[in-house]
């Protein structure tokens, strides 16, 4: 059997913490990695750095991990170098706030790529960098994408599972980002484990209905990419959404809360958009209504009665 050099060559776009973490995880699993970034990430013998999209296009599996604000521009530039044989997956949480397009929708409209996928699940950047055991989920309608991602990332410390419901996974990731604000808020406001669990279960149920309205599968929300991802936020005091939630519960204004989180949080603009979507499709979204109140500075004591109304 001849060696297939392209088989394990992976391109990673984005030199932020998440891009670096994914590059490290792939390198750990034995891949040769080329990263596209203008920053200087931590050194790794198996990771090459480039600022040329053509170099990335030499890899047949490309992982996109840039901020959602620039994803369209990045994909448009990358698209000049791609063709139909490339497999492209992204690890970007969020939906476009104007049309609720998923990142894979953007990928299809900005590049010739069809065989695409999305990454999700509870795994954290720090876990990937340090090789601590965790779990990730990949969504794609193409089994070869699931196989390629598993092949690229699965190692003794990372379990990769797959779902064909890519749309569901993308929606679940985005909605979990919104709900995580509520988790931080509730924790800071002193919600006990029972109340927190009730809030999370209710939110998951609501998100699952929204997924169905979005043309995805309910159960995707109930799995690793939805419930699993959300549960992790309980323990993640530094997750930007959780930080914002906690800051809001302390009575900070939204701007101050965002400043505290340092990172731009997509979920803030997404929440009103999800409420409009729910209204359009005539489904109830009480959790999102309350999240909108939280963003406007509502106090916990006024929200509790509404929860049980």
């Amino acid at each position, binding site marked *: 059997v001849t060696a*297939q050099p*392209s*088989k394990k060559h992976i391109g990673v776009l984005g030199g932020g913490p998440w891009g670096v973490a994914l590059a490290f995880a792939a390198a750990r699993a034995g891949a040769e990695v080329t990263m596209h970034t203008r920053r200087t990430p931590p050194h790794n013998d198996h990771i090459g750095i480039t600022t040329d999209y053509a170099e990335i296009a030499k890899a*047949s*599996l490309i992982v996109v991990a840039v901020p959602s604000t620039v994803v369209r521009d990045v994909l*448009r530039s990358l*698209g*000049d170098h791609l*063709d*139909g*044989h490339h*497999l492209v997956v992204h690890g970007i949480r969020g939906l476009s706030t104007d049309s609720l397009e998923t990142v894979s929708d953007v990928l*299809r*409209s*900005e*590049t*010739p790529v*069809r*065989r695409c996928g999305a990454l999700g699940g509870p795994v954290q950047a720090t876990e990937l960098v340090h090789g601590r055991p965790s779990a990730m989920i990949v969504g794609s*309608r*193409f*089994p*070869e994408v699931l196989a*390629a991602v598993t092949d690229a990332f699965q190692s003794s410390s990372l379990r990769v599972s797959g779902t064909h419901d890519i749309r569901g996974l993308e929606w679940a990731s985005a909605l979990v980002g919104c709900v995580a604000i509520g988790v931080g808020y509730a924790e800071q406001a002193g919600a006990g484990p029972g109340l927190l669990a009730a809030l999370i279960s209710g939110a998951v149920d609501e998100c699952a209905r929204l997924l169905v*309205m979005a*043309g995805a599968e309910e159960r995707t929300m109930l799995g690793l990419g939805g419930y699993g991802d959300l549960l992790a936020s309980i323990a993640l005091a530094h997750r930007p959404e959780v930080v914002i939630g906690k800051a809001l519960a302390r009575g900070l204004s939204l701007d101050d809360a965002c400043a505290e989180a340092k990172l731009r949080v997509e979920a803030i603009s997404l929440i009103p958009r999800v409420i409009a979507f729910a209204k*359009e*499709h005539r489904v109830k979204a009480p959790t999102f209504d309350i999240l909108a109140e939280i963003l406007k500075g509502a106090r916990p004591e006024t929200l509790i009665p509404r929860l049980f109304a």
Partner: protein
Amino acid sequence: MTQAPIFGFNQHREEIVREVVQRVVAGQKDVLHVLNDAAYHETKRLESARRPDEVKEREEWRALARQLGRMGEGERRRRLTELTERYAWDVAGNFNPRVHAVSKRILPSLVTALLEPTMFLKNPSRMLDLDVLKSHVTLEGPIEKLRGLVENGTAVFVPTHLSNFDSIVFGYALEAAGLPPATYGAGKNLFTNPILSFFMHNLGAYRVDRRLRHNLYKDILKTYSCVLLENGYHSLFFPGGTRSRSGGIERRLKLGLVGSAVEAYARTLLAGKERRIYFVPATINYVITLEAETLIADYLSEAGKGRYIIEDDESSRFERLFAFTRKLFDMKGGVIVRFGEPIDPFGNAVDDAGQSHDARGRPVDPASYVKNRSGEVTLDSVRDAQYTRELGEAICRAYARDTVAMSTHVVASVCFDRLRQISPAPDLFTVLRQRDVLTLSRDDLAAAVCVLRDKMKEMEDAGQIRLSEHVRTASGGDIVERAIRAFAGYHTTRAIESRPDGIAVCDPNLLFYYQNRLAAHGLAWDQIAPPGMLPAVPVQLRPPPPTSGPVSRPESAVSTERSAA
């Protein structure tokens, strides 16, 4: 123009059938399972058969099922090959260039004879003139471009499907557009339809027996259409599977046979003789539909949901077809065939030279989609099924863009909306019971039609739908008049009727059928979204301008007369 491959079909038929049989038989890994599956489905289908030939067939299947367990592998393979050969020959169509030439001349004269029998007697030579159909069937779309593409590639025409009349109209449209004839899989029941079989036979149709549900038969059909595409036979599929029962445009497709296109293309690459495949979505739009009454009744009857084959609808009754064609051709522009922009099997746009372009207009090599990570062309049915699914979505989007809205659709949408407003309960079946209880004032109806039309014009400018010339330019009143004229005289009941006190809304079922054409666009009440798909979000209409006198709420212009129960 080079001759389309179909003109050499009879010489190749044996080769093609042999290739199909060879491929199907070689592709079966578990022969015992395949034969068992076929025997099971066939025995079940023939369970209550009475006809002697069917009884005999059933007994043969039962005998086969009994013997299978004891048979050696060699014997099983032999039986499989026999069966496959029998089915493949049954499927294989016939194309007779002589008959094709004759029928394409007979077709318009037959239609003319149906339409204007007196003129036929006066001047028979006029009958051989294709202009007769030309003035009644309007062709739209990038026809010049398509003519260029079929020279070097294989075209797969995928029109919407409303009526058994479609294959005649579309066959004519291809002819009139200067496009080559296409081979297509027509339901076997159509070959027994006394009127339509004339057109089916020898025009390149192959036979699809929808009663056969077992996997071997499906495999044979798929392989057959794949081999035809590989050999450059232009093909025609109605990817909706059956005629739209609701009258709505297809929003979900049955892509079984269409799915063979990616494989066919990959096989031409593997054989070193690439032949590109171009999908051409098309809409066939009628101001009235031949089988509207039967189809909507079938749609509405719970029991009818599983009925795929209707043997005795309007299309098999001569006098109904006669009345229909007369009505249809009486209305100028009553039929519009609109060809859409061609796309490759991966949903990319195709330019005049046959080159694919991605959504941002970059040229892309379609071969790259069937290559694996090492750059080799591979056959992969799971991958291809995903491409096909996405292609189906692209075709459905094209259907929406290329739907041509006509007066009957627009007027039905407005009338049905008014029925909803007066219905005592909001569910579909209550609304459908509001028969002959509502009369609308002419001005009110015309104004509401105008509001809807203006919104549709905006959508047309945005490329979301098309309007017929008449709907685009006529006044609201004229659109209503034209719809009344179209509804009168063919259908056994009137959908709406002009009365001294206004326009009476008579038959909700028919109105439902015609308004459904606009449901997917959100321009009519969407009660027909396929299972698992959300109804279209209704478009927001501005309220109609006040007609005259004091400003009144639109409802007040509606006069309702409830008949005593």
